[in-house]
Structure formats: structure tokens, C-alpha cells
């Protein structure tokens, strides 16, 4: 039988998708194609009852013919049940009814704080990043966050301290979420191009590795001492139906824009009738 082939960008989206539970109300934020693709994967595979809230249009459960490279586009309204008002989405989160949001950062610290504002901080940034959108408040109140970065390997993404905290993780120098009076649960999972992480006791921990990645490499690319699960595993390979959604919904391949070109050369394969992946064996 022909082996099924897939690339890291596809697998990455699928790993993100698996952090969603069925029945959740989930939001991806704008400018986040991997998280966006992941939500369609979840909705069409294991989480049919989730409510998918588009990241800038706030359309509910649309069925786009393709995902455009911008988040506020009518392509993302097609087939939507309804379009929330701006304020309805944020109020939903503020009162604790938004179950999950995806957040990324040019810098992410071990508590899951993220910096999307400025490398080098403000008022004098070395690199002025785009900014946090609604993350500063949403991260405080959403029930659980899934973080992601596609730039772990750079060594600059996972840092001991963010130069600026845009979105809240489990604690900052000013205190824990509880001490800060914040109701949301904080980061529950993180996916990078190297592996999958969780946050036991509010601190980042490596749970799963992509099969072409060595543990030493992950530790070296991480700017702090990284906790590693005792039962470290390989990321479970994509299922055919998950891959099919990635490919059918992201026809323009906008997810790839998040990756360094070299990462996109990472190809994997598994035989179509096997549950296990040959490359992980």
C-alpha cells in the first residue's frame, strides 16, 4: 500500500487541534493560520459540537472554501450560523464562558507568559512586534489557553523571561493568576515545531517529541531548564481524516507562512493501514 506522506506544518496543526475538547467554545485570534486550521480539523473530526469562533470576523462555525492570508475577510463568513459582534466575543470571555483560545508569542516563558509586543521591551524596542490584539484581557479570563510557536528551534522563542508580558501565563513577577485576581485557567498546552508540552503546576513541561527531533536539541533550544515528562512519547501521527481536513480547508497553504522555510522540508510518512508511524518506530 502507498504510504501516507505529510509535512510538519500539517502535523503541527493536527497536534494543535487535539488540544481542543468537544463542546468547547474556541477562538483563534487573528494572524494565526495554524491555530485557525487546527480549529477546523477539530470541528470536523473529534469535536463536532465545539463552537468555532473565527479570529477577527467572529463568525460562528463558518465553512470557508479556503482560508485567506488575512483574518478579517468575507471568505471566513461563508456558511456561518451567525457573526458575533466584537463586544459579544470579548464579553463572553470576560464572564468566563470562552473555553479555549490559541495564543502565540515571539517570546514565551516557562510560566506561559508571552510577548507579542516588543523584543527588548518598551519604550525602546529592538524589534517592535505587531501587538497583542485582545490577548492581554482574553488570556486573563479564557478558561484554558493553548499556546504555540513555530520558532522554538531559533533559541529565541522559549526564554526565561519575556522582555514584555503581553498575554498572561500562570504567574508573573507580580504574582500568580489568583493573586492578580484573574479568573481564567491559563495555558494548558503548548505545541512547537519540536514537540508538545503541558503545564503541570503552571510550569512548562515537554510531553511529546516529533519523531525527527532529539530531546537534547529541544533542551538546547530552550532558554531555561525545561521539565520533561517521565513518560516522554512521540507525537501521535496524523490520522487520514485529520490530514484530509488540513488539505481541504487550507487550500492556499497559509499555515506554511508561520514556518521557517527549512522546517517545511520536514516530511513524514506512514503506511496507510497502520496506526503507528514508521518514522516513530
Amino acid at each position, binding site marked *: 500500500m502507498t504510504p501516507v506522506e505529510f509535512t510538519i506544518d500539517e502535523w503541527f496543526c493536527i497536534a494543535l487541534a487535539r488540544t481542543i475538547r468537544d463542546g468547547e467554545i474556541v477562538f483563534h485570534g487573528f494572524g494565526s493560520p495554524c491555530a485557525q486550521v487546527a480549529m477546523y480539523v477539530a470541528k470536523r473530526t473529534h469535536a463536532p459540537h465545539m463552537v468555532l469562533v473565527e479570529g477577527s470576523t467572529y463568525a460562528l462555525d463558518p465553512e470557508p472554501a479556503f482560508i485567506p*492570508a488575512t483574518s478579517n475577510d*468575507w471568505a471566513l463568513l461563508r456558511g456561518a450560523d451567525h457573526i458575533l459582534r466584537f463586544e459579544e466575543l470579548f464579553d463572553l470571555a470576560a464572564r468566563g464562558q470562552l473555553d479555549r483560545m490559541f495564543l502565540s508569542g515571539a517570546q514565551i516563558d516557562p510560566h506561559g507568559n508571552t510577548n507579542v509586543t516588543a523584543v527588548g521591551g518598551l519604550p525602546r524596542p529592538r524589534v517592535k512586534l505587531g*501587538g497583542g490584539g*485582545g490577548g492581554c484581557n482574553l488570556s486573563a*479570563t479564557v478558561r484554558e489557553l493553548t499556546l504555540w510557536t513555530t520558532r522554538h528551534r531559533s533559541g529565541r522563542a522559549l526564554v526565561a523571561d519575556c522582555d514584555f508580558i503581553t498575554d498572561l501565563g500562570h504567574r508573573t513577577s507580580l504574582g500568580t493568576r489568583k493573586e492578580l*485576581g*484573574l479568573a481564567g485557567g491559563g495555558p494548558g498546552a503548548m505545541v512547537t515545531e519540536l514537540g508538545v508540552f503541558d503545564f503541570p503546576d503552571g510550569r512548562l513541561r515537554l510531553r511529546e517529541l516529533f519523531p525527527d527531533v532529539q530531546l537534547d536539541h529541544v533542551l538546547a533550544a530552550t532558554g531555561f531548564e525545561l521539565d520533561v515528562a517521565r513518560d516522554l512519547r512521540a507525537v501521535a501521527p496524523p490520522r487520514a481524516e485529520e490530514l484530509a481536513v488540513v488539505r481541504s480547508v487550507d487550500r492556499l497553504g497559509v499555515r506554511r507562512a508561520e514556518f521557517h522555510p527549512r522546517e517545511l522540508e520536514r516530511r513524514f510518512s506512514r503506511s496507510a493501514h497502520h496506526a503507528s508511524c514508521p518514522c516513530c518506530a
Partner: protein
Amino acid sequence: MMRARMLPDKRRTLADAIALVRDGDTVALGGALSYREPMALVRELVRQERRDLRLVGSAHGIDVDLLVGAGAVAAVEQSYVGFEQDLGLAPAYRRAAELGLIAVRETCCYTLLQQLRAAEYGLPFMPVRGVAGTGILALHPEYGEITCPFTGQRLVAVPALAPDVALIHGLSADRRGNVHLRRPFVLDERFAHASRQLIVTVERLAPADEVAEAGIVLPSFLVDAVVEAPLGAHPTSCYPQYAYDRAHLREWVDAAGSDDGVSDYLARYVTGDGEAAYLDAVGDERLRGLCEWKDSTERWMELASA
């Protein structure tokens, strides 16, 4: 004397409308990212050489970047400025921020919403749930703290924010200034209610009954001036009229990497003879093409990849 907002005919030229904006004003920008930004008004601000503006809004792109590049801006209080994962950082904004040429008062969509709500509700402040613990709080010495009289909880308090003027691009309007928009509205409704003045451009002026039938989102008593400006959101989208012009955004991003590039772009597109010259410079064929998004999915995908 009757207030100007109650006049039965508020049609103005682009130039007369932008004359309502003064140097140093706090300007709210409608739309978001690549969608329905008030670009004709933005270009006219550049033509009239407005200075020291304070820009407020949610997640924006070329509107803010162009104004910063043109030297019109003293402070930026947006939640995001850029071109997403696709075209990346906003070059002019980034450069001005890194050189300290503008004050970066980055905000959060929800914090801004609560500040607008305070103005809309006639209240001096609103509490917010988040922000505590973040760097955003430290950027805003004007924020305060409040203790809930019932629960004793301490919350961040943000002051009312009533922009001096909001600039919004819509689909159609009647001469009185009743405006039809289609969703997403982003913050347009809130800007309209919270701002001291409201200037609206539309694709088309239309008879009152036609606008009412389509659906009035901004009633005329909120509007100070209405200007017909077809393609006035270009290069951002104004569905169902036209998709966004990704190639033009890329042209801007490429140009905006240097001061010379910005100058060349402004000379080529902006500082000429008004919007007609702008649309000429962009070219009829390109503009017609953007209206073809609805012809087929394939055509739309083609435009989205241009």
C-alpha cells in the same frame, strides 16, 4: 441654533470633511486589518499634512502604517499594527517605534472597548477584568484601580475615551448621513457612539429609502459629514464590493521598509490630485479585478494569492 449633526444634508467633499480634523486630535480608525479601513480619509489626512495625531483602534494595518510613515502621528494606541503572518510587521510603524519617533501606547482590544463604552455610557471610567500583571498596564499610567463596593475585589479601572473624531468607511449612506454597513462591524458602532465627531465615507450615496431598506447601522444624528468615495477602503476590502488588494499591500510593505520608499509611495499614490489620481495610479484593471471575487471560488482564491 441647530447643531450641525441635525442638518438634513451632510454631504461634504473629502477635503472639507478632513478639514474637521485638527493637528493633535485623537483619531479612531474604523474597520480592521485588511477590511474596510477608511483609506480615502487616511490619504486625505496625508494630503492635508495633519500632524501629531493620536491613533486609536483595535487590530489595524496599512491605515496606521501609512499615517506613521507620512509623519502624521505622535502616538499610536492600537492593539495591533501589522500584516499578520502573511506580510509580517508594519515597516513604518516598526521603524518609528524603534527610533522613538512615536509614542507606542499599545492597548488591548477589550481595554479599548471598555474605554469607549465609558464614553458611550457617559461614565468617567469602566472596570476591566484583565490587564493586571501585564506590560500593557505599565504603558498606561492613566489607568487606575477601583475596589468593588460589594465584593471588595480590586479591578483595573480605565478612563473614558471619547475620540475627537472617528473615521469610518461604509457601503452606502443617504444625504442626511444614515449609514449602511455590513458585518463584521468591528468597533465601528462603538466609535460612532463614543466619538465627538464622526466622518463617514461610503461607496455610494443612495436615496434614503434604499439605505433604510439595506439596514442603517449608524443613524444620522451621530454623523457630522458623509462623503461619497468609491473604492475608499482600497487597498483593504469592502465586501460585497471588492476584495482586499494583497499585491498593493505587498507593494506598500516593500516600499515602507525605508523612508525613501515611503516618499516614493506617497508621491506615486497619495499626494497627487485627490482620490481620482489615486485610483488612476492603482489602475482600472486591478480595481475591476478585485470586484470579481464573487465570480467563482477559483477567482477569489486567485485574488487572495495575488
